[in-house]
Each structure stands twice: as structure tokens, then as C-alpha cells.
């Protein structure tokens, strides 16, 4: 099973920067927002945690269709289904590979982009912590969505439509944690909720996603 993880990471690196691209998208969305809303730094500071979370979420979203689609197209997914590893394991490895290659770089880069949006200094740590706790849930939910749409040609937009509503609780608790942290308020509750969502989702969704893939393959 680790072979699968390693292969996926290798492919992410070879495909001309699976790591870098999500990051670049994150950067660009963050840069576009000041163009859109105007350069008022007080205003920017207020919306910074929210914009950074939404940007990270969109960057995550855009890389979701890679999770199963390529394996489906070249027949690997069928072969994995006949291989001696359970489909649940495949799903979990895929989600982990997605998190490592797409979400983790975002977590690490978020503070740098915080500077661009005048995020208050107190907020950096909380922003990173909330992203670190929340992004695994994004990857796992996204993997479920990708499993639903595998086999649909260019299902990318449909995938977004299915996954975004499922992202709402994570987004809300994530931004609340980051915003309250930045304003010096207590934020233990949203952080706990984030951790809870991540744990619950990792425990349950692999089964749902594996079932869905089996349906899609037949």
C-alpha cells in the first residue's frame, strides 16, 4: 500500500509540479482579491483569514479531479480493484497522497500570503493550526467526491458542485478558529470541532468512497 502512496507522490512531482501548482493558484487567488475589493488595508486585514481559507479550499478543490481520474482513464483503477489490497486502503492512500501533495504546501505557505493581506501578527499561528487541522478533512471529503464522479468525462465542475456544500462546516469552523485567534478571542471550540470533523471523516468516508468506486467500476 505504501507503494501506491509513493507512486502517487512521484507522479505529483513528475507531472510538472503537482506540488507547486496548487500553491501558485492559492497565491494568485489571494493576490486577485485585493484587485477586486480595493487596497484598503484595514478592510483587507478584516477579511484576511476568511480569504486565505477560501483560497486554500479552492486550491484544494482544483486538484481533486486528479485523485482517481487519471487512474481510471489508463485502466489502473480496474487493475487496483483486482489487486490484493482492499479498496478502502486505496482510497485512504489516495487521500493521504492528495493531502501531502496539495494541501500541506498550502498550510506552510499560508503565513506568507497572510503578509500580503495584512493579517495581524497574532493570527499567523492560529491560521496555520486551523489549516493543519482542517485540510485533512478537505482532502478526505474531496476523495469521496472524486470517487463519485470518476468515469464522468471532465467531471471537474460537477465535482466542485458536489463537494463544496460538504466543505461548509469545515470552512466555518476553520475561519472561526483563525479569525478568533487573530482577534485574541477564545477559539478552543472551533478547533475541537475541526479536529472532530477530520477524525470522523477519516474514519467513515473511506468506506463510503470505496463502495462508490466499486459501483462506478462495474
Amino acid at each position, binding site marked *: 500500500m505504501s507503494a501506491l502512496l509513493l507512486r502517487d507522490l512521484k507522479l505529483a512531482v513528475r507531472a510538472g509540479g503537482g506540488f507547486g501548482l496548487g500553491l501558485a493558484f492559492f497565491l494568485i487567488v489571494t493576490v486577485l482579491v485585493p484587485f477586486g475589493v480595493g487596497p484598503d488595508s484595514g478592510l483587507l486585514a478584516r477579511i484576511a483569514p476568511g480569504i486565505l481559507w477560501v483560497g486554500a479550499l479552492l486550491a484544494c478543490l482544483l486538484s481533486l479531479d486528479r485523485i482517481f481520474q487519471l487512474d481510471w482513464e489508463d485502466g489502473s483503477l480496474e487493475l*487496483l480493484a483486482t489487486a490484493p489490497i482492499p479498496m478502502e486502503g486505496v482510497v485512504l492512500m489516495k487521500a493521504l497522497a492528495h493531502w501531502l501533495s496539495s494541501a500541506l504546501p498550502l498550510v506552510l505557505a499560508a503565513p506568507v500570503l497572510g503578509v500580503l493581506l495584512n493579517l495581524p501578527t497574532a493570527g499567523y499561528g492560529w491560521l496555520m493550526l486551523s489549516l493543519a487541522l482542517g485540510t485533512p478533512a478537505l482532502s478526505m471529503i474531496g476523495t469521496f467526491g472524486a470517487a463519485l464522479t470518476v468515469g464522468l468525462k471532465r467531471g471537474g465542475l460537477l465535482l466542485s458542485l458536489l463537494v463544496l456544500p460538504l466543505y461548509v462546516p469545515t470552512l466555518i469552523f476553520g475561519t472561526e478558529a483563525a479569525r478568533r485567534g487573530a482577534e485574541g478571542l477564545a477559539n478552543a471550540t472551533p478547533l475541537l470541532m475541526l479536529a472532530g470533523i477530520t477524525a470522523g471523516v477519516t474514519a467513515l468516508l473511506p468506506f463510503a468512497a470505496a463502495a462508490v468506486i466499486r459501483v462506478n467500476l462495474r
Partner: protein
Amino acid sequence: MRVEDLGCQRGGVPVLEGVSFTLAAGEALALRGPNGSGKTTLLRTIAGLQPPAGGRIELAEDSVAYGAHADGLKATLTVAENLAFWAAIHACDKVSEALEAFELRPLATRPAQKLSAGQKRRLGLARLLVTGRPLWLLDEPTVSLDADSVGLFGRAVRAHLSAGGAALIATHTDLGLEARVLDVTAFAATGGPAPGGFAEAFA
């Protein structure tokens, strides 16, 4: 392996019914039939990728290696890396034998996307060797292969059979193998929707 009274469906439409045959270790069976007669459907059903519409498939667990139209190759990985991945998944260590068997040694460090159609196909066939599985299900394995490569393929299949394996091969061309022939047209479904699906429920 033993198939009894098997029914196969595709897209809710029954394609084959009453398929029965046995395949002993060391034997190869060639599936024949015109386009659209259901060879691919039968292979996918036996591989467990789609549920049978009826009947029984007796088969040891984890014994099937399926070689489809698509080869499951990653364009950016090299030939050797592609094989090594499938070997790792199947916990089998025959990469270099597989490279030899299909004369892929000189291409080992070439990314799969830079192979010609026939070279890709050879790599897809080499993958079968690293699964270590006894039963090969092959869908038109010699497409795009030149005469020499067809010879390599024949040799690999014979070696597999004499090592106690078995093979079920759908094909339109001559493989240069001594194999029993099963004509799937004999089992063409006579109509009526596939059981268990929407089509049947609303017939």
C-alpha cells in the same frame, strides 16, 4: 476455474447467458466471436469488475490478472518504474524477468509516453508477469504487435501455462497458440432484461 450457466450484462442489457466452461491449470482457452458479441463483457465479469447476471463463477480468490484494452501505464513513469509499481502492489518480485520476457530491457528507462503503440502493448503484457497470478484474462492482447512480439507473447503464455497457470484470451486474430476455442456467439442472450437491475424491475 469453472464457470457455470453464467449470465453477463452491459449497461443493463443482457449480452450473454448460459455460459459454461471449465479451465484447468495449464490450459488456455481462446474466446472468439464477432464485434459486439460480448467477449469483453465476459472477461470483465469473470475478473469481478461487474456483477454476474446469474450463474456461478468458481475461482480461487485473488487469482486473476486482467489485461484490458487499457494497459494501466503511467505516462510519466519509466518502463521499469511502471513494472516495479505493479510488482510492489502484488508483492511479487519478477520485474527483471518480465523485462527480459518482452525484450523491454533496452527501453527500461524510457517514460511510457514515449513508446510506440506496440511497445506500450508489450509493457502492458509484461505487467501480467509481475502480478504472479495464475489466471490471465486477456482482451485482444496482440493488438498493435508485430510478428516478433506476437512470438514473444506466445512464448510467455506457454511458459505461464507450463508453470501451472491458465489463460482466457479474447481475440480476433491467430495467436500461434494451441488453445481450445470457445465461441461466445453460442451464448448470445435471447432477450429479456438483465436480472436485478432497473431494466428488469420495469419490464
